[in-house]
């Protein structure tokens, strides 16, 4: 069973990497891009017995830093 975890920076947290990507896109001539925020996708292959509560605990304890990041769990 596969679950995808999306880790993104909280609103209001400055994202220098997103800014650099944004500038690079503009440098390549892509117009109309208002903002870019970079995040991380983590795919977890696990047994069906791993509960949503377990997955949330994984996110809180390791996968996301709750000071600066949010997470979203998407079951395949």
């Amino acid at each position, binding site marked *: 069973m596969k679950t995808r975890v999306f880790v993104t920076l909280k609103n209001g*947290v*400055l994202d*220098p*990497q997103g*800014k*650099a990507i944004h500038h690079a896109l503009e440098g390549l001539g892509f117009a109309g891009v208002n903002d870019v925020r970079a995040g991380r996708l983590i795919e977890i292959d696990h047994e069906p017995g791993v509960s949503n509560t377990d997955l949330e605990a994984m996110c809180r*304890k*390791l*996968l996301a*830093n709750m*000071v*600066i990041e949010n997470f979203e769990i998407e079951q395949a």
Partner: protein
Amino acid sequence: MRAAVIQFPGSNCDRDMAVAIREITGADTSLVWHRETSLPERLDLIAVPGGFSYGDYLRSGAMAARSPVMQAVVEAAGRGVPVLGVCNGFQILTEAGLLPGALMRNASIRFVCRTVKLTVENSQSIFTGGYNAGEEIRIPVAHHDGNYFADDETLDRLEGEGRVAFRYAEPVNGSARNIAGLLNDTGNVLGMMPHPERMIEAVHGGSDGRRLFASLIREIA
């Protein structure tokens, strides 16, 4: 005096840290591997050194903060044992929850490697007693993720409680309120991005880092 320097895979300032501690404090200093579940007894100082533990995978310091030895470090910190985290060590201490906030990618997105001016903000701590409040000192930095972040409420509280130990005299990496070094609420844990262990004798271009270690002898011995 007895000290331990924690080694993670990817630490690269562990030996420099051990040399600085031994030379300046005379402490019996041991290197402790991250897989250990306990620390040597009767420690007067634990140092979490700089480097790129676990290749900075996931987030700088994130993997190291969950390694077995860090539970023992957190427990020791709770008992009041002084803990010094430098650079990657600072990142590890925030990831382990010993210090508030987080260290993010430098605002410039560039690795910053140079000697910077710091202002000593708090000269009352066990780590900074050898400095004068407001004094300007020179200490090198070498990091990619030194941009300190905490929400405004936390920052106001930290400032109000005198927990900002060092501030960059000029912007270096985008850190909130130019914070370079931070104390925990009981004052026995210090995290800082600049490397005091790299500025301890004339051949380093200065010795302003020396007094940080010297302060500890006076407090502990």
